[in-house]
C-alpha cells in the first residue's frame, strides 16, 4: 500500500512483531475533531503501549483514494492494522474505555471477536 501519509508520527520504528501495534488514523483535514482524536490516541498509546506502537495519520482530503482500501466512512477512524484482526474505532477517541476495548487492550468489558 502506498504511504500517502501527511504526518508520519512513528514513535518506535521497530520491526513488526506480535507485540507491536500498528495503528492508522484516518482524518479529513485538520479539523478540531481530528486534532482531538490524534491527541487522545497518542495519550492512550503512551499510557498503554509504550514503545510498541506506530501511528500513521492519513488525511483523506489529500488522499481521497485511500478511503476505499480500509473501508473508511466515518472520520476520524482509527484502524488497528496490527496485531490482527483488524479493528476499527470511530470517533474522536474521547471515551478511553471504549478505545481500550476496541484495541483489545481491556478484554474484561464485552468481548468482541
Amino acid at each position: 500500500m502506498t504511504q500517502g501519509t501527511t504526518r508520519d508520527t512513528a514513535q518506535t520504528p521497530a520491526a513488526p512483531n506480535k507485540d507491536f501495534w500498528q495503528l492508522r488514523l484516518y482524518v479529513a483535514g485538520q479539523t478540531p475533531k481530528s486534532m482531538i482524536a490524534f491527541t487522545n490516541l497518542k495519550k492512550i498509546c503512551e499510557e498503554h503501549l509504550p514503545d510498541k506502537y506506530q501511528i500513521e495519520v492519513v488525511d483523506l482530503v489529500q488522499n481521497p483514494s485511500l478511503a476505499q482500501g480500509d473501508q473508511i466512512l466515518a472520520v476520524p477512524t482509527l484502524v488497528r492494522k496490527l496485531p490482527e484482526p483488524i479493528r476499527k474505532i470511530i470517533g474522536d477517541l474521547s471515551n478511553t474505555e471504549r478505545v481500550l476495548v476496541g484495541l483489545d487492550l481491556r478484554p474484561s468489558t464485552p468481548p468482541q471477536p
Partner: protein
Amino acid sequence: MSRMQKSQTKAVMTELEKTPTGIGGLDEVTGGGLPRGRPTLVCGTAGSGKTLLAMEFIVRGATEFNEPGVFMCFEENEAELTKNVASLGFDLQALFARKKLALDYVRVERSEIEETGEYDLEGLFIRLGNAIDSIGAKRVVLDTVEALFAGLPNEAILRAELRRLFRWLKDKGVTAIITGERGSGGTLTRHGLEEFVADCVIVLDHRVAGQISTRRLRVVKYRGSLHGTNEYPFLIGKTGISVLPITSMGLAHPAPTQRVPTGVARLDAMFGGRGFLRGSSILVSGTAGTGKTSLAAAFAEAACQRGERALYFAFEESQDQIMRNMSSIGIDLAPWVKQGLLHFHAVRPNLQGLEMHLLAIHDRVREAKPKVVLLDPITNLISVGDQLEVRSMLTRLIDFFKTQQITTLFTSLTSGDDAPEQSEVGVSSLMDTWILLRNLEHSGERNRALYVLKSRGMPHSNQVREFQLSSRGIELVDVYVGAGTVLTGAARLAQEARDAAEALARNDQIARLRRAIERKQRSAEAQGAMLRAELEAALEELNQNIDQETLRSQASARDSEQMARKRMADGEASKSQSRSPKPKEGRKNNRHRVSHLMAHSNGGRR
C-alpha cells in the same frame, strides 16, 4: 449554496429539468425522467428490483446519454454486482475500462466498529466525491444507504449526516438514486429515508397473487412535475427493466380509414361491404364452440393472402392443433407459416405473470412486425390476473397496437349463464368492433348465429346471420325471419320448404281463380251472342212481317185505287193519291223503331 439558489430560480423560470433514465416506460411515466441534479428515492421490498433499476439507470446513462455514473453499493461487492447484472446484458467491466462507471463497495461491519465519541461521515463524502470526480459522473446511486443504520450505532449522527449527504449531492448537481428497503409499518423506508429525499419517490413492489408474481412501480411523489400516479407493472427481462404504463398518458394514436377484409365475404358485407377498419380492435365473443377461433383463423388467412404478416397468440391450443383444426374447415394455414407470413406464439397463460405475457407480446410484435394480431382467447389470461389487471393489460395492449396501426382480433369466451352481451373481462368498451357468436338451440339442434353488436365508425348490419362451418369454410346465411320467429338450421330449411309449398299452393289458387273468371267471361260472351242471334232472328221476323204487312197494305191500296178507277170516281182518285204516302210513313217509322231496339241490344252485349 449559490449553486442551489441558481438551480432553484432556474426551476421556477423554466420547467423542471429531467434526466432520462433510459429505462423503457419509466421515462414515459415520469414525463421525461428523474429530476436532474436531485436525489430520487427508490424504495421497495426485498427482491423488488431496486438494485437493478438503479444499475440500469447508471448503465443507460453511461451508454446512451454519455453521463458517467457512480454506483456505491453497501450490500453487494463489486464482483457480485457485476455478475448479477451480467444476466441483463450489462457489461460493467467494459464501462470501468472506458471510465464511464465507478463502483465503490462500502462495507460496514458492526462487529468491527467501536464507537468512541464524536465523528462524522466525511469519509463517505470523500469517497463519493473522489469517485464522482474521477470519471466526471453525472449520476450517482447509493444502494442501500440504509445499511449504514445497521453498521453505525449512533442514529442521531447518521441522520444528520445523511441529511448533509443529500444536500451535498444536490450541490454537486448529480442526479442520484437512493434505494431503501420498504418499511413494515406504513413507512416507505425502514429508516425514514423519505424525510431526506423529498423530490421524487418511486415505490417498487413485488406481489404474489394466485401463485403468480407481479412487479409494480409507482411514482409516489414527484415535486414540480406531472407524473403518472398509477401502479404500473414492470418486468425484468433479458434487456433490463421495462415499465409498462397501463395507459400511455396521452390518447393520440392515429385513426386510419383504410379497411381490411375479414376473410369472410358475407361478413365484409355486414360491415358496409369492406370489412374492419385498419388498426381497430375487434372482439369476437361467444360461448364454447361458437367458432371464435375459426373466425380468427379466417381473418389471419385473409391477411396472409393480402401479403400482410399476421401474428397469432394462442393461449389455448398449440400451433399444430390450430392448423389441423382449421384445415378441417378449409382454412389451410401451413403455407403461410412456411412463407413466414404467419407466426404463432402459443403459450399457456399461467406460464408466467401478466406482465411477462405483455413483454412477450411486445417482443414478438417488434420481431415479427405484423399488420394483424390475433389473441385467442384473452379470457384465459384471467386465470393469471384478476379482472382489473387483465383489463389494464388489455388497455395497454390495445394502445400499443393502435399506435402501431395493427389490426387486432381478440376472442373471448363467455360462459353460458352470463348475458352474452357481457364479455368476461369487461373490455368491450375498449373494442371498436364487437362480433357476438352464439348458439341458438331450437327443435333439437344447435346452430351458430352471428351478430355485429357494434362497429365504430362504419355502417354495419343489424341482422343476425347464421354462421356455418363446413369443409368449404365459413359461410354466413340469412336466417329465417318471419311470422315472429327466427329459425336456423334444419328448422330454417323446413320452414323454407313449408313456405315454398304454401307459395305454390297460393299460386295454384290464383291460377284457378283466373281460369274461373275466364270461363265466366266466355260463357257470358256466349250467352250474349246467343241473345243477339235470337234478337236478330226476332227482328228479322218482325221486319219481314212489317214488310209483308206493308206490301199487303200497298196492295190493298192499289186494289182500292183500281176499284175506284174502275168505278170512275175521279174526284175520289186525287184524294186517295194525296193520302197514299201515309202508310209509307208508317212503315218508315216502324223500321226506325226496330233499328233502335237493335242498337239497344248491342249496347247491352257490349
